[in-house]
């Protein structure tokens, strides 16, 4: 068993897949061997402290170096069962690799931890799932949402001997790994292969097309199951706050990316031919702009109301945008959407901004950018099902106490839907895992 081995047949590789080839290609064996020899095998290693999922990095790199790829993969998976996708999507430049001590010398060149992690998880060959479940506890836990948080939680619970039922609103599991992450980061249907691998542990039943608030309700879940974990992510999208946002030509970036991720051929997508504007400053905005470029949009302009230093997209991500020849305009806020007499979008007007005493204010300058489409990428929000008992502060995000407990008895939460940590895949994995451990401990004390 090997995640990568389940590759699609060559004939199935569509033009679309070619357009979205791997942005960070895998290391060859020789490169991995060389790169692994660069690791100093630090004690109390800074990189481990910087990995949100606590992977023992020097240990797995040493295993690669010693030719034990399976051992390396086991070390990774023991802390992060989505280590394969994390190795591809983690912004390593602000996580493990930023902390690597080899950054500090004159060489300023960290060990390529993410790529080594990918090397191990891609190439490990396991006869069976690498982990064995603890003896059955007889308990069953409901996990709502099959994104990274839910999957990680379910896997850990299964390992600890519990049975798990996952309820997922969409027709496919994976969450943003399936519907949101840029297509050039997770290629070859990786999300689904990884889910197959995770479920191989046993004891997990996946129910798709089952939405909380519609098909299932918390009340019955808490009654039927020994505990409930909510990992429902962020389903809402923030608006620009200007008029006519609901008119044709104005799209949510995440919706477009989701369609792109599910499309089999390019003609299933409506791609602006000449020019598009993307508004936002995070990774979603960058991903959106770059993917449009790859789809053939001639002119893509990314506009942000503050400066590049303030963008939440990392320097590395900004560089990727530049490499894709995306135009970045800063200090400009959307003022009005422009339409012709047939109500067809013709462009967007921006108001220049500046900061005075730390406050963002308008200058007296405005400018128009003609475009066929505007993509909004100014943030996602929680849309907690209105029918369900609310948790305090559920207006913005689910609040959890320590141990990922919500205010509702037996209900835990983790991942993007909570206010804990940054909204990153690896964070979601860690929170799902920690919540599973907390649930297990709780059930054990109750059992006594």
């Amino acid at each position, binding site marked *: 068993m090997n995640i990568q081995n389940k590759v699609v047949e060559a004939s199935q590789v569509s033009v679309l897949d070619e357009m979205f080839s791997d942005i960070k290609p895998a290391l060859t064996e*020789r490169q991995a*061997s*060389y790169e692994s*020899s660069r690791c*100093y*095998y*630090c*004690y*109390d*290693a*800074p990189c481990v*402290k910087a990995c949100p999922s606590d992977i023992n990095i020097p240990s797995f790199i040493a295993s690669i*170096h010693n030719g034990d790829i399976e051992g390396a993969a086991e070390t990774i998976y023991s802390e992060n069962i989505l280590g394969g996708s994390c190795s591809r999507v983690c912004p390593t430049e602000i996580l493990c690799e930023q902390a690597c*001590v*080899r950054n*500090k*010398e004159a060489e300023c060149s960290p060990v390529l931890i993410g790529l080594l992690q990918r090397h191990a998880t891609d190439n490990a060959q396991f006869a069976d799932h690498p982990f064995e479940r603890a003896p059955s506890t007889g308990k069953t836990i409901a996990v709502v949402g099959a994104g990274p948080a839910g999957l990680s939680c379910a896997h850990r619970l299964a390992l600890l001997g519990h049975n798990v039922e996952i309820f997922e609103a969409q027709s496919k599991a994976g969450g943003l790994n399936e519907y949101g992450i840029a297509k050039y980061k997770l290629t070859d249907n990786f999300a689904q292969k990884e889910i197959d691998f995770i479920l191989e542990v046993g004891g997990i039943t996946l129910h798709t097309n089952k939405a909380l608030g519609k098909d299932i309700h918390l009340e019955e879940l808490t009654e039927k199951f020994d505990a409930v974990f909510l990992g429902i992510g962020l389903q809402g999208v923030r608006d620009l706050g200007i008029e006519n946002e609901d008119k044709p030509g104005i799209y949510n970036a995440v919706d477009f990316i989701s369609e792109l991720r599910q499309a089999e051929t390019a003609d299933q997508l409506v791609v602006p031919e000449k020019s598009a504007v993307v508004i936002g400053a995070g990774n979603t905005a960058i991903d959106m702009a770059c993917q449009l470029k790859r789809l053939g949009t001639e002119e893509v302009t990314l506009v942000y109301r503050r400066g590049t230093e303030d963008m939440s997209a990392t320097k590395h991500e900004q560089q990727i945008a530049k490499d894709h020849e995306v135009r970045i305009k800063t200090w400009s806020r959307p003022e009005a959407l422009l339409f012709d007499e047939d109500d067809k979008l013709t462009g967007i007007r921006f108001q220049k901004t500046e900061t005075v005493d730390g406050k963002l204010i308008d200058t007296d300058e405005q400018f128009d950018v003609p475009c066929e489409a505007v993509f909004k990428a100014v943030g996602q929000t929680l849309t907690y099902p209105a029918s369900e008992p609310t948790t305090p502060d559920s207006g913005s995000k689910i609040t959890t106490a320590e141990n990922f407990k919500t205010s509702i008895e037996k209900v835990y939460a983790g991942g993007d839907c909570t206010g804990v940590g940054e909204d990153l895949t690896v964070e979601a994995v860690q929170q799902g895992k920690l919540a599973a451990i907390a649930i297990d401990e709780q059930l054990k004390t109750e059992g006594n």
Partner: protein
Amino acid sequence: MADLSIDFVGIKSPNPFWLASAPPTDKAYNVERAFEAGWGGVVWKTLGEDPAAVNVSSRYSAIYDSYGEVSGFNNIELITDRSLEVNLREIEAVKKSWPDRALVVSLMVPCEEQAWKTIVKEVEKTGADGLELNFGCPHGMPERGMGAAVGQVPEYVEQVARWCKMYCKMPVIVKLTPNITDIRFPARAAKRGGADAVSLINTINSITGIDLDNMVARPIVDGKSTHGGYCGPAVKPIALSMTSEIARDPETMGLPISGIGGISNWRDAAEFISLGAGCVQVCTAAMIYGFRIVEEMKTGLANWMDSKGFETIEDFRGLAVPNTTDWKYLNMNYKVVASIDEDKCIGCGRCYIGCEDTSHQAIDLKPQADGTNKFEIIEEECVGCNLCQITCPVDDCITMERRDVGQPYMNWTQDPRNPHREVTEESTHEA
């Protein structure tokens, strides 16, 4: 510019870099290429009696450092597999075309007077500059009573050296095997037999590794293997130590030495020369990188000599010998302690865990508010062992600093803690 030329037991050579007797010096074609590349001399691949030796297929294996470079090399080849007559003809021709280069001929024949008498006379006719007696080959040949089988018995070494000196006028160099408990014994024997010089080391008995899938050592010959001879960078420390033993043994002191073993660059060569070697021989490095490496060796050595003000090889030859002594003469009152340069420290923690787990618990790990660690030496606990300095991956980050203990030189023979000391406490104080 420094003068690299040497006169080694009467053999002149434009530089001290010779190729050791091995495949690089197997035939005229290789040797001509070596001289064209700039090598000062060669020791021709060992000649034997006809019929010539026959080799097996699959002959070498290696161990590698973490970057994949060869650090140790192993071979199971025998002496030349070409006829004596062809070799002698080529030697004569090459010497004629390259009169300014050293051409020494390596020999190995059975341990009988007649055999040695015949071959040395043949070689002398070629005009070669000298002989090297191969008493070192550790694989294959000893099974036939030659090579290391001779080199391991000092009486044989002495005897063969004496025959060779008796039947020819050429300088005779005895090549020593390291596969022996105390290298001084065969060296003394060579000197007693009248040898002009010794060369060392030949290869060390070795198995470089096991093919764990097939449960057989490397190199593999049809599913079986045999121990080979080890050479390359990994053997240099052993060769240096043996060189120093001979250089400072009262019985062999002053006996010319040709240094061999793991020499890959000018620095390695300078180290052998500082321990008394009059010339150096190279095999593995040339086999891995080709003859062109001699270019950087020559310029590197000359530049270093210029920087130190040494005009000739003799100016620095043997300078490290007097500083290589017995343990018992080391100064017990010398004290160094580790010191960490905080600005250079990258926080890898290796010094800490090495000292904490395996040494003297002399480094303190201080967690900082920002999640990083700071490392500090606890001077009272530090014994000055150098371990942290060795494990630290940053150049000059950990230095060993001298601490004045206010006591004069005192060695173990004088140390009051030594129950068998040779001098009384009083006499130490007086000294």
